[in-house]
């Protein structure tokens, strides 16, 4: 049997992702003991493990995006359910270290059309970043902006460095660290959503912390 090397890499990443998934579930099952010497390293390994899983998922998707166009599987989903799920995941990841809040603006409709899996992957990536940099609080928000559903993650960190803001705003690729990869990934996902000529967007800015927003038309 002959292997195409890129397919081999994709298969390998895939396998690793599944193994890591199991590892992550195993780590989840270790009960906390109220003893910092035990609990902190367990928490840290859980976070790290989840982070690696998510990064691999992104790598697979970007690999796909390079080779062929991403066709998002768009259907009607509830933004309320989405925000609740992301909040629950963020809360579990932070284990009380960071305060997680979620808000839904009144104007957000009961249903919106998007690819739930892609949007969740992008938001979880943003959550990982924020959990790593926030001081004490993180806010997940759904609102309506320019007729689009805006899903935001707002933290109380020092904010995005200038070069990242620039690279996202100007469409130049930034790829010296993991952060760059994750944001590129969010951008690909946002842009794969379009509706009646309007394309989705990733917007970053600083407002007493970093603000990450996905705009879905």
């Amino acid at each position, binding site marked *: 049997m002959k292997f195409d090397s890129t397919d081999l890499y994709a298969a390998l990443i*895939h396998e690793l*992702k*599944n193994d*890591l*998934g*199991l590892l*992550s*579930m*195993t780590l*989840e*099952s270790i009960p906390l003991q109220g003893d910092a010497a035990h609990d902190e390293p367990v928490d840290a390994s859980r976070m790290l493990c*989840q982070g690696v*899983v998510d990064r691999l*998922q992104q790598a*697979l*998707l970007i690999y*796909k995006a390079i080779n062929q166009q991403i*066709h998002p*599987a*768009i*259907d*009607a989903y*509830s933004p*309320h*359910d989405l*925000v*609740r*799920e992301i*909040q*629950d*995941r963020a*809360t*579990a990841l932070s284990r009380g270290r960071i305060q997680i809040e*979620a*808000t*839904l603006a*009144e104007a957000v*409709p*009961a*249903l919106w*059309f998007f690819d739930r*899996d892609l949007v969740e992957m992008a938001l979880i990536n943003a959550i990982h970043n924020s959990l790593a940099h926030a001081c004490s609080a993180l806010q997940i928000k759904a609102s309506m902006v320019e007729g689009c559903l805006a899903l935001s993650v707002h933290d109380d960190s020092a904010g995005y460095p200038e070069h990242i803001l620039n690279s996202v705003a100007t469409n130049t690729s930034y790829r010296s660290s993991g952060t760059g990869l994750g944001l590129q990934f969010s951008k690909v996902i946002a842009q794969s959503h379009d*509706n009646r000529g309007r394309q989705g967007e990733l917007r970053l800015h600083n407002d007493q912390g970093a603000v990450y927003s996905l705009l879905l038309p």
Partner: protein
Amino acid sequence: MNPASIRVSDAFIDYGELRALVVDDSPSMRNALRLTLSNFGVTKVQLASNAAEAIFQVKGKPCDFILCDFNLGEGRDGQQLLEEMRHGNLISLETVFMMVTAEAFYEKVVATAELAPDDYMIKPFSPEVLRNRLDSILLRKRAFREAYRHFIAQNLEAAIAACDELIRTKPKYVVEALRFKGDLLVALERSEEAEALYKDVIQMRAIPWARLGLARTLHLQKKEDAAEEELRDVLKHAPEMVAAYDLLSEVCLAKKDVSAALDALKKGVAISSKTVRRQQKLGEVAHGNGDLDTARTAFANVLNKGRHSIFVTPTDFGNLCRVQLEQGDLKAVAETLKKNKSTLQASPEGKLVMAVTQGMAHVQAGNLQEAAKLLDEVAQLRAAGTRGDAQLMLDLAGVSMANGRYEEADSIVSEVARNAHDSEALLTKAKRVYEQAGRVDAGASVLSAATSNVRKLNNEGVVLAQRGDYQTAVDKLLAACDEAPRNPRIMLNAVWVILKYIDQAGMDEKLMGIASCNLDEAERLSPGHSRISGLRLHMKDLESRYGIQRRAAG
């Protein structure tokens, strides 16, 4: 509004009460999932490592939700398991079926399948995701309870009304309710209303399932060009949507473009090769088009990939052998029969397929004596009431004629013709059997004698019914049913006039019983026939008007 508060106020799900089934071929994954479920209170968890075990489990003990991995190793995959469970009524619409996929590609195949799971998750997932997804689906099932209840009772009008109520009052479920209503309208053949509904959804967003629904309603209205155009464009945006290839092949067949139909089926098979019915269709169309290599591969796949599937019947073994015979590959035929001997010997239908196929092989090899022995065996099976599909029966007639047993052959062909008096394709095949035996004139008279009486009784019945003389129409059509006891078209006409007669003259329980049996039998012979659901509805309506309890099935 804080989302956490919704959970408390709007709904409470008692996970301790729910029974779960986890299907995964990896033991560590099964255990991890069980542990995760126990974290939010699910303690009644059954485990299965493959489809067969899962079916065994649900037959033994119904469950509230099923978590199933798409990839179950050898044997059936999660999608096949879902189809068998839903089609076989092993689980009801109220049972949650959640698919777990690891491969990014299959997640889309699963999500866009014609019979989609209630939701799917991509591995690996965190416990919070599982909990949230289950919450949402269980609440959705709760909201749809009325609609499902009516649907299960075959009360489609009431189910539609329940959907309308959801559309009016529950903005969160609008799209889902429209989707279910669309299916109901299509089942009731209200194509124009369904078309308008799908256009409304597309107006919101051109999501693939709505476009597929639109294409289906166009096809039902015989607007084939528009249907094809829609489907080709859907596939450009959602190339993994296998259901669109299936429908495209139907549309192409309706346009008599067989090679395009084959092409569509091949593409569907390339994406999801395990679906038995798609392989069956591919084999059938390829065979009809003289593409024996494709037909052979497809029919062989039906048997290989559909091992233990409820959709595989003795007919499928006969189909593969027929192609192998046509290719002159007697060795392959012998191998197919040898390999599947125990399966075929297990039922009279299987024995019939085996005997007819062997008979054909002997005729082809010139061993008429051996063939004659098999014909005796077949005669016994037939005398006991065993029948095969029409093609097999025509093959049998061919073997009989090769052995000079003309009378037997004529009676077999006559029976096929009576039961398919309006099928141009089958009558043509029957003619070919006589041509090959050099009995063209005999064939013409057998076929015309067989069909003319059925056709006459049927036509008279229909004309009488149109004039409003339902009573005589019932007599004529019941006589036609005696003449052609396995003819779905005649049976459905008989059911139709009986119901009309009862409409007019009041309840007649004996006739109602006959109508009910005929309808069941027609559905068995011709599942999914477009007239069945309408007639069922009419029957249901009469039963409730006259306060008759529905007879328990079987």
